[in-house]
């Protein structure tokens, strides 16, 4: 809601008051508002208010050619754009019955894991900042930039890669790229003790994060929570392993879990996933040189490309959880309907509202960051 349209309601005298966090607040990931009713510093009720980032992408995509929509998909989730591109491409490929060349599949996995690393680094930093610790944030963003350097080299763009295309990817990896990925991964690996010292084993942080925004496994399942947030309640589930796509079947990785289900557990799961993603990326680097062949199967002229009628639901595991596209074609050159199911649609709205009740004002931002809420996924 625009500020000029906001009218404070006259309340009878009470200890209760309303507080708006956002839509522009350092504790909010992106433009998003969270309206609180408090008693003292205790939250009585939280209401999520979205719409500040609504660009009508789903509607926009209905008016564009299949391939033109590639430019839109990464914009739906800025910190973790690759899963958006890949899952949309997977949907179009399934509708068209395209066989993706193996090399392209491995390149996609490499991007997906690099993107996960970048997104997790971003989230750690943000989470630390909500507890008043800014160094991990600077570190996280600086180290994420190194991953963005890799993306720039591979895809030509740092944030919006627009690198995947139905049928494969748009470019092969440049010469020496894999070496640079390897050295960046080594560097990130070497940074982990620094992060551990400053954040994950820092008792100030541990005490701040433990017991905040706790949910049980039953609640998580009830509320439709997915991804690291679900794994933090002890359920070992990952779309990459349990509903595999691309070449994840051939890869060796673990699914880290925690039992506590609080902000601390969620952060730890991400911390461990970082290690797993580095592990997967290293497997890709090792395998890629021996996988020759094209990076894209032949696709029609983008200006004359009808996708066979049908509907498809493709899901992937993004850094935030289960990400899915429901894509409907009526046989035309544009999608008839695209619906994106961002994981944050659950944990940035209902779950956040539920978890914030009873928590203290200073923990609200932390709860939101520990859930890794991504407002653009809600708004689309």
């Amino acid at each position, binding site marked *: 809601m625009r500020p000029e349209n906001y009218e404070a309601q006259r309340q009878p005298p009470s200890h209760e008051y309303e507080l708006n966090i956002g839509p522009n607040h350092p504790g909010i990931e992106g433009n998003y508002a969270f309206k609180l009713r408090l008693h003292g510093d205790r939250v009585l009720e939280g209401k999520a208010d979205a719409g500040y980032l609504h660009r009508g992408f789903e509607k926009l995509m209905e008016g*564009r*050619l299949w*391939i*033109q*929509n*590639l*430019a*839109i998909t990464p914009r739906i989730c800025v910190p973790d754009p690759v899963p958006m591109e890949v899952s949309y491409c997977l949907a179009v490929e399934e509708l068209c019955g395209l066989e993706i060349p193996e090399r392209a599949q491995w390149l996609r996995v490499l991007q997906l894991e690099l993107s996960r690393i970048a997104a997790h680094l971003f989230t750690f930093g943000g989470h630390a900042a909500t507890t008043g610790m800014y*160094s991990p944030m600077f570190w996280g963003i*600086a180290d994420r930039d190194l991953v963005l*350097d890799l993306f*720039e*080299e*591979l*895809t*030509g*763009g740092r944030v*919006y890669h*627009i690198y995947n295309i139905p049928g494969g990817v*748009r*470019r*092969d990896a*440049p010469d020496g790229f894999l070496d640079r990925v390897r050295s960046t991964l080594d560097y990130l*690996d070497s940074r*982990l*003790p*620094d992060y*551990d*010292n*400053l954040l*994950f*084993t*820092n*008792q*100030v942080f*541990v005490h701040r994060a433990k017991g905040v925004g706790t949910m049980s496994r039953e609640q998580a399942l009830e509320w439709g929570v997915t991804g690291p947030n679900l794994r933090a309640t002890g359920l070992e589930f990952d779309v990459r392993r349990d509903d595999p796509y691309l070449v994840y079947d051939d890869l060796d990785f673990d699914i880290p879990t925690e039992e506590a289900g609080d902000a601390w557990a969620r952060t*730890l799961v991400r*911390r*461990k996933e970082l*290690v797993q993603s*580095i*592990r997967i990326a290293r497997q890709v680097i090792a395998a890629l040189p021996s996988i020759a062949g094209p*990076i*894209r199967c032949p*696709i*029609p*002229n*983008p*200006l*004359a*490309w009808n996708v066979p009628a049908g509907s498809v639901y493709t899901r992937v595991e993004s850094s935030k959880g289960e990400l899915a596209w429901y894509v409907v074609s009526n046989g035309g050159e544009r999608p008839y309907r695209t619906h994106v199911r961002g994981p944050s649609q659950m944990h940035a709205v209902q779950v956040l509202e539920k978890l914030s009740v009873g928590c203290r004002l200073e923990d609200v931002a932390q709860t939101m960051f520990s859930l890794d809420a991504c407002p653009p996924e809600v708004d689309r």
Partner: protein
Amino acid sequence: MRDIDYKDKGGILNPLKSLSFFGRSSVTVPLEPRAASANYRGFHLNDWEACIGCSTCQKVCDNAAITMVSIPDLPQDPAKGIRNLRPAIDYGRCCWCALCVDLCPTGSISLSREYVHTCLDSELDSYFVLPDSNGIHGTPYPKGWAKSEDADLVALERARMEELPPPERIGNFNEIVAGYDANQAIIEASRCVQCGMCFDACPTHMNAPEYIRAIWKGDLEQAVREIYRTNPFAHTCGRVCTHRCEDACSVGHRGTPIAIRWLKRYAMDAVDHERVKRIAAEGKARFLSGKRVAVVGAGPAGLTAAFDLIKQGYEVTVFEARPKAGGMVRYGIPDYRLPQDRIDRDVDVIASLGVKIRYGTQVGTDITMAELERDYDAVILTIGLWMGRSTRIPGSDHPRVKRAVTLLRDVAEKVKVSVPASAIVIGGGNVAMDVARTIARLQKQTYGQVKVTVTALEDLEHFLADPEEIKEAREEGVEILPARGPQEILFKPRKYEVDKIHGLRTWRVLSIFDAQGRFAPRHDEADEQIHEGEMVVEAIGQAAEVEVLGEELTERLDWNRGRLEIDDQGRTNLSWLWAAGDMVRGPDVVSAVADGHRVALSINGVLSIREDAA
């Protein structure tokens, strides 16, 4: 790779370990922009030399960021598919997805490694940029994302067309090219980027982008409708058109042009003939104007004019000396390129609209031009080029030396043509190829083997015949000798009743034209060859048989170097007489069709004004 054991190692002092960072040097970043990666998608570059102004970038731009700007200084050539348009980019809208680069037919657009631009509100115009190879600020930056084989989205390869292999085609007159099936046609049509260069290049401006797209959509009736908007010789042009559209096709700059001619042929073959007739009749006037138009000669130009005029309510009668309509496309093009039943269909569509064709009526003998002048409101002369030219070398006036048009006409009319076991064709154009390949087929049928020699003045680089004609002729056993100037036809010693041709004596050609560009061949007389053959066919060009006009009319008409003088509408100096087609335009089917439209438009303009005045 490490994992943490946070439960054991946690401690209040751990963060203090980070104090060691005070001992490290701080990270500094230079003020100037960091160099971008080799693949970077920055501001656009456009190589104006390579850009053809096809505006494909504009079509694929999802953000409507591209405006095409016409630049008068740049060359413009519809025949080569070059427009003076260049893309201008609105950086308020561009999202740097680089689809414009990947779909650019010529590869002229690329993105540079330059990525910094900012300005005050008052300088917003600087966001609208006409990129050239110097970049947005005039400081050259290296290319970033550019055309590569990996990323190319232009379909460069043509869908394969089945053809009869040489051994199967040489002994008969069966059509060589199989034509596309539905699947191939859709794939081929899908390659089109809808730039419309073909429309600009086509003499009769066929709506090729529209019918290609209709074929891609599977709406073949719509395709036929688009074809008939501008060309009633649809079957004919679908097979033997000189396809200037394909020369201009923007996909052809780096790949094979869209097979526009074969797509037209596919659409025409795929739609039921009766349905084609109904589509062709759409838009026919429901009234009769009461005006009568006579057309002399039922070739492409004459029948196209008749088609247009009958649709506008005129009564049209066509006078044709031969027993069948079609003119040179029927009597000059062998069956293996254009089967006669296809011409029958084109003629049938036109006749079905009500055009009356009087066959076997030779103007000048069966009916005079004076009668036509008297009985009709307008007369169109489309008598074609039916008189074969002669080399006039010694021996060429001998009755056993044939002219190309006569030979082809005899074959088409199924007159018994006897060919000897060896023959020589003089000429290097497509007609010479038609003659040579026709003789080759007849020889194969009669003798089981081929011996045809073609001698042309031109060397191979300047050959007039299409490269594929030359290739196919050679595959069929025709020997082609470039740069040979004919000097004399030799005869065998006179021991028979009738003279028998022995062969042709030629000299090597040094040059064909003199410094002023006039025809004056120079020869190397030392390089003399005798080519053996019992028959010589001259295929060096044709002229119009203007004797049909009669002396009196010829006197009244204006002439220019033996050609009838007409204005740009096809009208002669006589108010009732128009001329069109090969006789005034030179030999080409699709130009004849275009000419037919032109005179029909002119006649309609003149006759309807007369009516207004009356």
